[in-house]
């Protein structure tokens, strides 16, 4: 299960931000997300500009994960959390 999920404001649409923001604060005050069990961190920029330009991405425990959509990325972590 992920400990920390980070995302870029530039990279999310309003719906995804709302979904993530349920557990997110700014980088200064990130909070825990009940569904994924992870700490969600919103940032203006995660310095992943090339990947950000090309795809939906999250940084999960420091590792870049890309996919066609954030829903796809999140579903993996939701499933991992529900298995626990």
């Amino acid at each position, binding site marked *: 299960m992920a*400990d*920390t999920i*980070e995302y*870029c*404001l*530039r990279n999310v649409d309003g719906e995804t*931000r709302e979904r993530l923001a349920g557990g997110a*604060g*700014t*980088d*200064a*005050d*990130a909070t825990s997300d009940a569904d994924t069990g992870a*700490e969600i*961190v919103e*940032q*203006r*920029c*995660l*310095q*992943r*500009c*090339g*990947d*950000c*330009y*090309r795809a939906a991405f999250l*940084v999960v*425990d*420091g*590792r870049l994960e890309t996919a066609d959509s954030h829903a796809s990325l999140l579903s993996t972590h939701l499933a991992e959390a529900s298995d626990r």
Partner: protein
Amino acid sequence: MNVLFVSIDSLSRHFLDVYPEIDVEFDVETDNLDRFAERAAVFDTHYAGSLPCMPARREWLTGTQEFLWRPWGPVEPFDETLPRLAREDGIVTQFVTDHYHYFQHGSHGYYEDFNGFEFVRGHEFDAWQTTPRYPDEALLAQVTMGEDAPDAHQSAPDPDNLGFMNRAQYARNVDDFEDESDFFAPKVFDATAEWVRDVGEWDQWFCYVDSFDVHEPFHVPEPYASMYTDEDPRDPDLVNWPYYGRVDRGQSELTDRQLDFVRAQFAGKITMVDRWFGRVLDALDETGAWDETMVVVTADHGHFLGEHGWVGKPQAPMYDVLTHTPLFVHHPDAARAGERIDALTSAVDLYGTILDELGVEADHRHSRSLSPLLHGERDEHRDWAIYGYWGSSVNVTDGEYTYLHPCDESVDAECYSTEMMNALGWFQPREPEYDAEAGEFLPYTESPVWKWETYATGRHDDPMLFDVTDDPEQADDLAGADTEQEDRMRSLLVDAMEHLDAPPSQYERLGLP
């Protein structure tokens, strides 16, 4: 009067002997900055304004405190740049830099007005070398997090990834570097020294030197790499380019060993810059140019290296680590030469100062010339200095207290510009803002500009207040405890915003009257 204006990017002032208020674990060798400080006026209370890199440069070069209106972006058509005004007044202008942001997506108009410019290629993500396809593996590891990262979660950048901002670019750019003289600061300051020696045929000149060092990546040659650490500087487990953020979580997480190493490389880079900056001082000595040249040395901002638990220029509260910047000014006729000046000053003030000392008459926009301070005509300069990133918190200091005011992240921020820059993804190809409207929205020009909204970025939820005279490290947040000072500083912030005629939407997003 000639003017030599030197920026040393990311030069955190608390690493310098000249500014001893905060201790660091090293005695960082800066013999040349020290000798320059002996002849210069040293400003103790100088603050950044608009952040980070390019917003700071628009302050210096156009006198615009832009962060209340727009983020990182180009010179606007209604800006009057220092080099344009100077050359129109018969002053030859030269620019020496390795700062590739001038040539990157998102910003233009800063170098084009100079009579000449020297661009040293290859720093950070500069789109320079495309070979070798597979650069040095150890360096590739070091420019991310190395194999010693917490949870071993970082891997080296993929050289086959052709996307923007791939850290493999840096490893390619420096792949054939062998000697110290191949590195960036040596080239920048060597070119500057050579230019200073050769420029004597011109009656008057303005030279702007913008050293990207000591900015990351903190990759430095020997002897600097080993000067402040016993580690093997080429150990691939040790990172020299940490991501921005908290040191205790996520992609920016660092072990104590890694953080110690990064700080040592940063210190080494300062010493490298200092030694090559000394070549410029030598050239001024040899040519006797001191007697007819104002020399300004400053930085756009500092860089977190573990202070307050942060690294880089992250989405953190705007602590003084980032915003309280060094400033040294040599002026051959200044009454305050060799003295400390404690008056509050702001980055934007350099624009008017340089114009005044060049003898160029022009509107100073948001800038207030420091010349009366330098010449001993007055001791006070400004009651407030405000600073911040566009679309985020807005912060103010009176020189004794700093007050950091949060924004409401749920209220989008307005962006104003003649161009549709990416307000969040500064370095990516621009995209149209279909909802933008046009109009005369800016208080300092009649030119129409676009106006559109995008996400705001918070840094903290509640106001923060620090007595930086007694607590320069800002360890003790007085907000909520010292309500008298908090109220006074909040009023001062409103005064500053009213003086600058900030957009009405700023008051709404900041919850200010």
